[in-house]
Structures are given as C-alpha cells and as structure tokens.
C-alpha cells in the first residue's frame, strides 16, 4: 500500500527553465514567482516523497502529431530531456518507477481508460521545469512516473474524464504492493493564449475559480467542456486539464498548504498550489 502525501501543481513555462539556468530568481521580474516555492519545497521535503507522478502535456518532443495519445503513461527505467528547438538547456536524466507505472496501467485499463504505454519517453520542459522548481539541488533521490495528457490537438479529453482518470491512478497508487510515499506533480496553466488575435488573453477570475474549486470541489470544473475551457482559460489554458487529473489522483478531502499567483510570467498567469489530504 502506497501513500499519496499531497500534490504540487505549478505552471511549467519554458522561460522559467531559462531563468533558473541564468540564476535570475532574485531578479525583479522573477522574484514574485520564485518566492512562492520555498514554502512548497519545505512542505515537500518534510513529506519525504519516494516517487513523483508527474501529469503534464508534451509540446512536440516525445510526441508528434503522427501519433497523438489522449492519455500516455511512461513506464521507462529512466527519462531524459532533449533539445526542444528554441534554446532551453537540457537537464540531467530522472529515474523512473516502472513497477508503479505498470500498476497504474493495469488499474487504468481495468477501469476502461485505454492508455498508451511508453517504455521509452523523452520528457520536455513541462515535466522537467517543475522538477527543477521542486528539487533545485537535483533529483537523485526521487523517481517519477510521467503521465502525458493531450491538451494540444482537439478533441481534448473532457474535464470529467480527466478527473475520473486521476481517480483511477489514485486507486492504483493506494493499492500498490510496495510502501512508497508518492507526491503528485501537476503542471501547466493557468490562463494563457499564444495564438490568434486573442493572443495574450488572461482570465484571473476563472483562474481563481479553478484554484478554489480544486481544493474540495473539483467536480465543479467538470461542467465545462474542453471548448468552454479554451474560451475561459485561453488555448493553452486548457492545461488546467493536467491539474484536474492531478486532483483526481489526490482524491478525497484536501487542505491548501501553499498558493501563489503571479501575472505575467511570459504570456501566462503563473500559479502554484500545494494540497495535502485533509
């Protein structure tokens, strides 16, 4: 039986990776963002996780549009980053937890989520930037199970489906034969839009609604279709689906331990939310 110690949900904007690389954490532009993380890291280190289940979306590193899974579960012994084309530095490899990956795959398919399994999987900034934020000294002590959600090519999975998928993953973790402390890392969002005449769209009201709902009423978010989420959160704000999966994994009643929110980081309303079981 493994234990889910809580969840950390954070934006994964590539510029964060560049700011870390250049040591800009105390820079005027960046400080309000990075200042959210010391309390989140203090909570994380006290909770001593063995494994992080990382829910994110790939941006054209591991997956191209030739084969685009709706839900993909990494089951590799090690995950590496690679050149993404526009200059974010690569980071050291991170170890996998393939036994837990397969337990998640078994449970998900038993629950009728027909996932794609990946025994080799490159992880992009959406997975690695949150690792850099939470383990700035390095991640030798942690293993991951990356779970990629299609938030890019419509039709996207519904919020309802994402919450249920997360709940299935949560069941798999709790029933897992080994005793592990597992933290959920959900990445992306919040509101932002990169393309079209509405590029630069932000919606703090909807972001706040999402943050408040995610604490103990995540089912409220399942009333929105993926198309409505794009309208309310912006095209790339659809990454809130990753957070909804993550909230499903955590399950049960929760308490908010840390929240930060800062506009703008790049084109994005950047947010951080740490939840633990209530």
């Amino acid at each position, binding site marked *: 039986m493994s234990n889910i110690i809580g969840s950390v949900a954070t934006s994964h904007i590539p510029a964060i990776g560049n700011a870390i690389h250049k040591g800009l954490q105390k820079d005027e532009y960046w400080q309000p963002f990075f200042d959210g993380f010391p309390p989140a890291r203090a909570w994380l280190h006290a909770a001593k996780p063995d494994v992080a289940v990382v829910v994110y979306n790939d941006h054209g590193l591991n997956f191209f549009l030739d084969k685009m899974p709706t839900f993909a579960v990494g089951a590799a012994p090690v995950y590496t980053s690679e050149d993404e084309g526009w200059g974010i530095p690569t980071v050291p490899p991170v170890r996998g937890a393939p036994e837990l990956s397969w337990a998640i795959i078994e449970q998900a398919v038993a629950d009728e989520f027909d996932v794609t399994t990946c025994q080799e999987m490159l992880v992009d900034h959406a997975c690695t930037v949150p690792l850099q934020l939470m383990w700035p000294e390095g991640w030798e002590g942690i293993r991951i199970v990356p779970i990629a959600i299609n938030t890019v090519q*419509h*039709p996207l999975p519904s919020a309802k489906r994402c919450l249920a998928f997360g709940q299935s993953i949560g069941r798999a973790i709790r029933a897992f034969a080994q005793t592990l402390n597992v933290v959920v890392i959900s990445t992306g969002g919040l509101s932002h839009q990169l*393309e079209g005449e509405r590029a630069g769209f932000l919606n703090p009201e909807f972001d*706040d*609604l999402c943050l408040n709902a995610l604490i103990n009423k995540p089912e409220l978010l399942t009333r929105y*279709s993926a198309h409505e989420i794009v309208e309310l959160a912006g*095209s790339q704000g659809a990454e809130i689906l990753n957070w909804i999966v993550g909230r499903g994994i955590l399950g049960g009643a929760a308490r908010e331990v840390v929240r930060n*929110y800062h506009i*703008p980081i*790049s084109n994005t309303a950047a947010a951080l939310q740490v939840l633990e079981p209530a």
Partner: protein
Amino acid sequence: MSAKPIPGTPVFTGAYAMRGYALNKMCYSLNAAANRAAFLADEDGYCAQYGLTPPQRAAIAARNVAQLIEAGGNVYYLAKFAGIFGLNVQDLGAQQTGVSVDEFKAKLKAHAIHNDAVKAGRLANV
C-alpha cells in the same frame, strides 16, 4: 462536432491538424540543431523536403505567424521555427495582435492588479 467559434482563437482541431501536417512536421524536425542549421543554409531546399503547400511556404518566407496558423501550424511547433530567429512568445503575440512587443507586455502586465486577490482566493466564489 462543431462548437461555437471563439473570437480571435483558432482551435487546433483535426481540420487544422490535417491542413498543417507538412508544416508542423518540418517545424518538429527543428528540434535537432543539425536540422536548424540545414534550414538556415538552404531554406528552399529544406522546405521542399517536407512538401510544404504554397501557402505554408509563403508564410514561412514571410515569417508571418497569423499566416502560419491559418496554414495549419500549431503554435508549439511554430515556436521551434521562431526560435531559430530568437523570437519568443511575446514577439509572436505582438505580431499577431498588431502592437509593439512593449505594448504587448504592458497589456499582459495590466492584469497583475488581480494578483493579490487571486492569491487570497477572493476573486471567485465556488
């Protein structure tokens, strides 16, 4: 299934994914440094390898983001193309909305007045 259009918001559906396939595939190839160098050395030849449609080739030549999107480009893949020229998503946003990069950044920053309210969870009741 067609949903109500969202003003100013191209939604990357199957129709766009089909139309933009060659363009996105070329942009995806630009993950590799050797391919970026090959593109810069011979743009025409590189585009020809991927069979871009005439509107896609013209949009690449013009470095025009709106045209690239209209030709089926997905912004995550277009970012790899833009990266060759050192352009980031604020540059793309400014170009698509017809303002300077500074004006685009100022527009983003105007929303910062809500930061404290959202941090405290005071903006939306659920």
